[in-house]
């Protein structure tokens, strides 16, 4: 099960919307909650429709539209998205209206747009795409499940181009709610570029919408080859993690020594960095280490930002200095491995290679 990434589109807290650019300018948020830099929606969305859409719907439609254009595909053969929290803003809006108005005088719009499958449904609706359509909603496995489904769908042979995406938004209220259970850093003004060195608990909140066109065939515009994905639920030891990584690598005829760059999901939370530190100092001692959550923040579908970064590194054969941990040891970027976790329960491994 493998597929070529032949298009992408991403809205994130960085200036990532232009598919030709690759972090040429890094935005330092220095905040505990990183919000996306939204593009101009004018030529991407019908203004009448856009007025009713929440931020995450607009960002996702914009990202998926750019992805379709980048891949030169009008109608994908399947659409699968991952989102842990769905359309949070609409959910909160309807919930608050129920509470404040004591279940009276409610209007349906925010309820309609609150369902987790709103984004994949809206993409289908706008494209009039009647093909396979799925939404995965499993915490730190949401995007990963969509990716696995994408690979399976391509392998099944009927679908040639599948649109796979991950999207989650953070709201001011949900930030406060998660803060109560220790998700975020307590210090004020966290210097985001120093997140890697952090010795305290908690991370910084993030969000984003990223879409990829997975294809059965290699094209000129191909970014990278997606070789495989593995999820590990509540790993009991580093041995188990290493075994799962090796299983994925050996199934492709690779060893850890073949991995040029590793993208780690290090999020600055000292409670959760042990796996990353272990892998960095053992299995992938010789590989170049990079990380990304200081750029996009922590969120359940952050694996989609990592996959974007890995694909761009392979295509451009460059590693932006802002994502490097230590020295760049790679002359060539052939194989990139992503290791990401959410709250130490949902771990995932992605393998990407040069086309």
């Amino acid at each position: 099960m493998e597929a070529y990434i032949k298009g992408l589109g991403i809205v994130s807290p960085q200036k990532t919307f232009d598919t030709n650019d690759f972090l040429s300018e890094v935005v330092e948020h220095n905040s505990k909650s990183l919000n996306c830099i939204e593009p101009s929606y004018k030529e991407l969305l019908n203004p009448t429709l856009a007025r009713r859409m929440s931020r995450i719907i607009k960002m996702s439609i914009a990202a998926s539209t750019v992805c379709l254009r980048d891949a030169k595909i009008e109608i994908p053969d399947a659409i699968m998205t991952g989102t842990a929290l769905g359309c949070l803003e609409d959910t909160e809006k309807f919930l608050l209206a129920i509470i404040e108005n004591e279940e009276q005088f409610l209007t349906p719009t925010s309820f309609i747009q609150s369902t987790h499958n709103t984004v994949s449904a809206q993409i289908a609706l706008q494209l009039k795409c009647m093909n396979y359509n799925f939404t995965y909603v499993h915490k730190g496995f949401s995007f990963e499940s969509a990716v696995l489904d994408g690979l399976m769908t391509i392998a099944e042979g009927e679908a040639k181009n599948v649109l796979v995406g991950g999207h989650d938004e953070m709201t001011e209220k949900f930030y406060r709610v998660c803060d109560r259970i220790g998700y975020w850093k307590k210090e004020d003004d966290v210097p985001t570029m120093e997140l890697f060195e952090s010795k305290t608990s908690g991370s910084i909140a993030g969000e984003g919408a990223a879409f990829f066109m997975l294809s059965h065939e290699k094209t000129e515009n191909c970014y990278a080859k997606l070789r495989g994905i593995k999820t590990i639920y509540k790993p009991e030891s580093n041995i188990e993690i290493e075994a799962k990584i090796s299983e994925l690598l050996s199934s492709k005829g690779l060893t850890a020594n073949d991995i040029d760059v590793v993208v780690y999901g290090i999020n600055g939370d000292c409670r959760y960095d042990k796996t990353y530190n272990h892998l960095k100092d053992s299995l992938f001692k010789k590989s170049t280490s990079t990380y990304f959550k200081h750029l996009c923040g922590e969120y359940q579908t952050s694996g989609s930002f990592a996959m974007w970064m890995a694909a761009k590194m392979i295509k451009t054969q460059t590693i932006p200095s802002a994502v490097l941990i230590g020295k760049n040891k790679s002359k060539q970027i052939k194989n990139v491995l992503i290791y990401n976790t959410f709250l130490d329960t949902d771990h995932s491994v992605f393998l990407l290679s040069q086309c």
Partner: protein
Amino acid sequence: MSSKIYITGIGVISAIGNDVAETLASFEQLSSGIGELKHIRSRHKGVVPVGEIKATNAELTAMAGLGPDKESTRTALLGLIAAQQAVKSAGIKNIKELRTGIVSATSVGGMGITENLWMDYLDPEKSGPWLKYIEAHECGDSTEFIADALGIKEYLTTISTACSSSANAIMFGARLIKHGILDRVIVGGTDSMSRFTINGFMTLMILDKEECKPFDSQRQGLNLGEGAGFIVIESEKAAKGKEIYAELSGYGNSNDAYHQTASSPDGAGAFLAMEKALKVSGLKPSDIDYINAHGTGTAINDLSEGTAIDRIFSNKVPDISSTKAFTGHTLGACAAIEAVFSILAIKHNIIFPNLNYKNPMHELSFKPTISLKIDKKINHVLSNSFGFGGNTSALIFSRHK
């Protein structure tokens, strides 16, 4: 890719029974589970009837064999109870002996608790052990709760495609087996009643103030329900020597791409889903003995679904009924609950009646089966589930030969 998918275990909890035996008894007695809302506070209590499970969360916790300190969301508890039944009926002693995963589905997740605690979450002055429910809001939390209780670790995921969610969970689980990624998957879905959904459907004006009347020309809307259904599916090799309830022979997923909440009048998405399911199963429409329809009782669904069925079956529609007037519409769980019903239809050669039907819809060629039918051999059942966002899915269950 040609391997078969065998069903070796089933479990269900809904307004018509806490297990398979109680469910069958309710069907035989034509006893609907629709009644007055009891377990949640709502202004609409007494106004809109619902299909509620007759147990408090504390009682459900005990039913799942957990101590009071392990109480979770109603969604998670219902899911665990149905999944435990499925695992037990499959005779699974050691869940880790095969590569076993879980694919669950839910539409509301932990909303049933979030809606009670939301203002307290936002008030830093208030604190308590209930803060643990913040993480339970996420849909995936109920799946992890079930997986942890059953000892499943190999693969977990959760699907939410509104009212078709658990059909897609069953489909994805089957594909994981066909790709050789897993040997066995516990697949299904769970959803609990919440003010959020009651009020949401109220604003859409599609809740019937009386018991719902699927496929009746005078239908006024749906009744909400709650519940969970899980089935154990295994590869041919893994199921060897085991009792097999039925096979999952076909599945199809499509999108209506017509409107965010309403189905297209001609049921284009529904048609495609059924067509794909038939193609995967290799069956002809005339092979289907019974259709367990989505049949919510809303003006739009029943017309759209009925029209698509007429087209697929060229107006020669086999026995068909909606069981929603028994259970209410259990949203993300309905396809899994109805999968269990479909499997029971095959196992016991039984067709469940479509309650509350009197007036035929002039747009459709067929009338649903309105009394319990036990005189026909059932080999193949088609089960439909459609949701907001145009998500349309169809599953086909077949007798194991």
